[in-house]
């Protein structure tokens, strides 16, 4: 049952977006989430949609992966679309069937909000599809550095993130191994009543936790004997490089914001 389980959605590639520095992509997504809210009429939404399509083309990500990312929230998207359609009763009456009435304004708002959700999901998906989790962590660490002044343990957080990312595949293998071992002994957590499943979870978790504590201790010893002392003066194995592409992306985003500001009603 673990074969389908893959951590992260990163797809390696060498497109324009893949080559960007994780810092510029993080700043881009962060600002984009705010800028999207400037759109409030057909023209501005069209601009945002076009901008997103260009980003998708530049990332050379197959549409299939993006659509796939929509599945878990499809229900919410449809639900909010319907809420708009049925509850906004402004503008001309477009369609009526018994007690169901659809007004122009409701349809317009429903379409706008759906475009916004779609665009947001696509843009955040492009970040995780084109950037490996460890690069995102490196980028976050650098971007959060100024908050060290407010006692935010940035280095420690980044260290924990990289340890987690390093261990997740190992932990998946381990979970799979224990699950199979327990299945071989006749215990199965994917069938039976709720009570039986909960009972079957216990012999999975205890060995998993015990071996995790063992791994943690081994790693602590290994780090200590190699003289790990914390963030001060540490050098990095993975270097980040900011080049003209990254500056271009941020400038383009600034232009988009100005354009939306100018076109919005």
């Amino acid at each position, binding site marked *: 049952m673990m074969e389908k389980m893959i951590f992260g959605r990163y797809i390696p590639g060498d497109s324009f977006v893949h080559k960007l520095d994780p810092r510029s992509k993080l700043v881009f997504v962060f600002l984009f989430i705010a800028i999207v809210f400037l759109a409030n009429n057909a023209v501005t939404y069209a601009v945002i949609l076009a901008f997103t399509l260009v980003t998708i083309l530049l990332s050379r990500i197959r549409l299939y992966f993006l659509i796939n990312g929509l599945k878990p929230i499809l229900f919410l998207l449809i639900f909010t679309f319907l809420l708009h359609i049925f*509850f906004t009763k402004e503008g001309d009456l477009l369609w009526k069937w018994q007690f169901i009435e659809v007004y122009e304004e409701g349809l317009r708002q429903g379409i706008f909000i759906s475009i916004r959700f779609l665009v947001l999901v696509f843009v955040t998906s492009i970040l995780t599809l084109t950037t490996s989790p460890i690069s995102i962590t490196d980028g976050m660490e650098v971007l959060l550095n100024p908050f060290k002044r407010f006692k935010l343990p940035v280095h420690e957080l980044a260290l924990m993130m990289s340890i987690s990312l390093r261990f997740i595949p190992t932990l998946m293998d381990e979970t799979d191994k224990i699950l199979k071992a327990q299945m071989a002994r006749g215990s199965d957590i994917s069938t039976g009543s709720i009570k039986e499943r909960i009972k079957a979870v216990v012999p999975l978790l205890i060995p998993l936790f015990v071996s995790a504590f063992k791994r943690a201790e081994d790693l602590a010893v290994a*780090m200590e004997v190699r003289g790990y002392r914390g963030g001060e003066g540490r050098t990095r194995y993975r270097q980040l490089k900011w080049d003209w592409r990254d500056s271009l992306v941020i400038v383009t985003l600034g232009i988009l914001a100005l354009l939306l500001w100018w076109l919005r009603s």
Partner: protein
Amino acid sequence: MNRSKLLLLIEVAIFAGIGLVLDMLSINLWFQGGSISLVMVPIVLMSIRWGLVGGLSTGLIIGILQILAGRAYILYPAQGFLDYFIAFTVVGLAALVRHKVLQARNEQRKGKMITYIVLGAVFGGLFRLITHVIAGVIFFSEAAEGKNVWIYSLVYNGGYMIPSIILTAIVCSIIFVAAPRLIEHRNNV
């Protein structure tokens, strides 16, 4: 950096990883597509084993991992912040029962131990539910102005959170009573 702090950092990191793995596993085990998962078990474990710092940081790392793994859906800035940076973190508030659980453990009183573990899991879980509900209200309030946004959000989030809380409370109390060494870290190493 002293040994105990280093061990805390590493255990938090690895157990956050376990939390994410258990969260991914849930999709195959429980209701299709639902998020009724064991993700809170490692957070409660670290809260009782290390206290508030251990619990809160395990939750925070799990939340950030969700974003890195592409499992996060950020549709409003405030909703994204609450759903991924705050919701998992507050489960670490289960640490408030830490001393009572350890005390009961030393007194060998299983009943008292179970009571406090359940209390801790429910407490942490309820804070997570409240956070998701507020995030949901932000989400729904634009689509249905003035309508029953609190009800929508409560139904949607309660639908998977309440079973998750019950599951976490049951599993934690079985595991911590069966293997109490899990919740005690050795200070002398």
